[in-house]
């Protein structure tokens, strides 16, 4: 006699298929999910609160930690937020360098995604390749910023250091290499019957609901919506580079989202090349801030946003006129994607697809509980 029709299982917080320290509580009927509930709180470090007790410069070192796989949009947002309230100019070259960093960050984030997405359907070779190749981008970061993962490089007023000698050439080289490798990945992932079978039609987001549900980034574009902060509200010099926002994959499933990313990593490589070509050779890269211990930002607030690899990333920065931020509110894509959206679209899906769907949404726990 079965008293209970459904079973409760916990995916995470320690599970190789989960995208970080979070947990999804699933109620399943057989293999089919009837209810999903996201549980967070395993990674709470209170970044937003910490910043209220750090001065405006110290806080800049915290924000990168809000997203491990792609920290730079956080740095960019924080810097732009502060600059907007203070009215601080950023030298031209610094703005080009910021774009370079942001696009390199996008490329490495997508390379990481290749690994996660393919591993979630049991294809491990691609991950071994793409994460190995990602290290070439991290090498570039190390050379430019002194750090591989957390760069702490984009800061209020510009960037921390100028490009090292011969850096541009090395970036071109890595870009060429990765572009070539993408064809290898295609053969292993996108051509692969396994991935096609698993990804198509799975994790569907109803396009008419997407905006209402707060979907952003590749998942939104995979519904056929043309939406990208870089085009809609260009920051830095994004209005001076050419790239295509893919709105032609419309099936709104894991497959379409993968295709969007496959397309966008190539666009990013192109943007990097344009940035390198257009960047001035000389010029300052930082508009020096005053003594950080006595640096007060005038009372005011600013909402700034950046298109990260996972979608629109927003920061609301408030100053009460003191040396410390009154509030830095972080609105990352994962908050919606990993909680409300995930809970909705998991219903009716198979247990074995949860990990794949999460990867296609770019859920990232540190960003949900910053």
């Amino acid at each position, binding site marked *: 006699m079965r008293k209970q029709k459904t079973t409760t299982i916990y995916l995470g917080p320690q599970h190789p298929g989960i995208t970080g320290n979070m947990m999804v509580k699933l109620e399943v009927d057989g293999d089919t999910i009837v209810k999903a509930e996201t549980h967070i709180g395993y990674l709470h470090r209170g970044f937003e609160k910490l910043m209220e007790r750090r001065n405006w410069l110290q806080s800049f070192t915290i924000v990168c930690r809000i997203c491990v796989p792609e920290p730079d949009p956080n740095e960019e947002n924080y810097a732009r937020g502060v600059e907007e309230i203070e009215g601080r100019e950023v030298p031209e070259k610094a703005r080009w360098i910021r774009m370079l960093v942001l696009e390199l960050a996008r490329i490495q984030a997508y390379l990481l995604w290749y690994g996660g997405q393919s591993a979630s359907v049991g294809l491990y070779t691609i991950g071994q390749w793409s994460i190995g190749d990602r290290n070439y981008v991290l090498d570039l970061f*190390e050379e430019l910023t002194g750090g591989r993962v957390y760069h702490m490089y984009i800061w209020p007023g510009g960037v921390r250091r100028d490009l090292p000698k011969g850096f541009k050439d090395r970036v071109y080289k890595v870009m060429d290499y990765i572009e070539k490798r993408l064809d290898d990945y295609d053969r292993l992932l996108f051509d692969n019957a396994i991935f096609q079978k698993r990804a198509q039609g799975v994790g569907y987001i109803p396009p008419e609901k997407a905006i209402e549900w707060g979907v952003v980034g590749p998942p939104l574009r995979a519904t056929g919506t043309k939406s990208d902060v870089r085009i809609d509200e260009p920051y830095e010099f994004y209005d001076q580079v050419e790239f295509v926002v893919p709105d032609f994959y419309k099936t709104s499933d894991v497959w379409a989202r993968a295709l969007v990313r496959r397309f966008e990593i190539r666009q990013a490589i192109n943007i990097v090349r344009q940035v390198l070509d257009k960047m001035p050779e000389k010029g300052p890269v*930082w508009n020096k801030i005053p003594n950080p211990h*006595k640096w007060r930002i005038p009372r005011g607030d600013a909402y700034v946003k950046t298109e990260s690899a996972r979608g629109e990333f927003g920061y609301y920065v408030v100053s009460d006129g003191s040396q410390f931020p009154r509030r830095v509110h972080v609105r990352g894509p994962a908050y919606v994607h990993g909680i409300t959206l995930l809970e909705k679209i998991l219903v009716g899906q198979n247990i074995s697809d949860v990990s794949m769907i999460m990867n296609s949404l770019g859920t990232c726990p540190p960003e949900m509980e910053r």
Partner: protein
Amino acid sequence: MSWFNIKGITNPLTALGQVAKKPHTIRFPYEEKPAAERYRGLHYNDIDYCIGCGNCAEICMNKAIDMVPVEGIEPKKGDSGLRPRIDNGRCCWCGLCVDVCPTGSLSLTREYIFVSPNPEDFLWMPGISNPDGKDKRSWRSNDLNFSINTYEREKMPMLDPKERVKSFAEVVLGYEEDQARREAQRCLSCGLCTEACPEHMHIPEYINAIAWGADDDSLRIIYDNNPLPETCGKVCTRRCEEVCALAKRGEPVAIRWLKRYATERALNADEIKEIVNPPIAPKNGKTVGVIGAGPAGLTVGYYLALRGFDVEIYERNSRAGGMTMYGIPKYRLPLESLDKQIEYMKKVGVKFHFNTEVGKDISFDEIYQKYDAVFIGVGLQDAWKLGIEGEDADGVWSAIHFLRRVNEGERIDVGNRVVVVGGGNTAIDASRVSRRLGAEVIMLYRRRKQDMPADWEEIEDAEAEGVQIWTQGIPVKVITDEQGKVKALRYVKAEMVPDPRGGRPRPVPIEGSETDIECTTVIAAIGQSADYSFLPEKYHDKVKMNRGRIIVNEWGQTDDPKIFAGGDAVNRVADAISAIADGYRAVKGIVRLLLGEEALKQK
């Protein structure tokens, strides 16, 4: 089934093509991959270059840095003796500590592997724990453009040199408000200056107040231990700026000009009183007599008056201020400025007896009997003589007598060519004053320019005003005309001979190099001495002297417990702030003597 096609099966198999390729992630045998040139790895600190300012610890948002004493490094002026210790367990390698290090001694290295089973080992002293780190430095702030500190000082507005020599108008015009705020913002609040200041003024605190726009607070903080801040704001010898952490690689914070800015906010004595509004203790019935209204005596007067003492100052001149009134020229310290400060002192209850010379108008004995304690702050009122032939001729002056007469408002006729002998600040003052009196001025100094004890800024200013500096010349004779008036100064050229004992090189006359400088006036500015003739014989065994200076203990007290002393008559530094510090020390001594040890603790 759209997903099924033959390519979907065969294409993934192309991965097999990689089998023969050299792997790029696994390297065997192990190859070390050196970190990037600006890698942010473990810290290194150039221990000898570090001054222990603690700015790294201050900026660290993880509080991973502590400043700790190190064996073999003693605290000294401009060096706290402490060095940073990093808790590598807390560090996040953001490198802000490096970017704010004012000296550039701290850096991160390309080293990034550190393994130890002992948690204590992760607390380590950069540069001491890894002396070999020097060659591995990577993240540095040697390019000042990327250091967070601002190394350039706000430019002080000054009169044009051509304008200056036309009058005794004040040369330095003072900071505008926005300039002062910016300059104050540069300060890192490390406090090395406080240690270097003879009076240990609360420098970071009052600069902070200016940075935050709280000028009144700033003035209150300043008056806490300096009763003549406007004087110091204009003419202080500013030992603080020499040790400023920013001075290692840039221009020190303009501490003196900021103090000046704060004091100038109060326009008159009433405003000072209103802003500073010091609590004045009820009268305690004790009386103190002070001899000399110079900075030392005034300090004693002010702080004792605040503590409820009856203080009376005896001054033989008609005005207070001592050398700051009669020595320092008015284009550096205008009369109104000094008057304003003295006026304020009178308002808090300091009493003056002007034109009263102790030893003549009133005897020392009388003062000694009348008061519970006596403070001697008589300064150095006599000038050293050149000791050369013709020195008594008409037209030969000692600098302090010359300056005194000018400061009293007399217009002295110096003729058209003045030779000033000496290389100190007094010589510079006499030269610049002579320029203002319309003469061509030559400063004759025994040694080289770099040996001149005068403030470099003063030297620059003097030259800008047209003072010629002739170095390595020793005067030997004043030549006079028939009326006994100066006609020329004869001097010999000197060569610098290294001191075998390691002291500074000595000037030695070159034989046969005598030269005459034609001139109308000669001013000797080679030093001063004290006149203790007011002090009767019987006190001499208690008030002891050493090479012209009175000997006192750490309370400013002589061997007669009732007699205190300070200022130029005691210290060998001979500047206003040291006189103030001496006065302040004697205040504590007198409070201790008359009110007891306990009273010292309450402020």
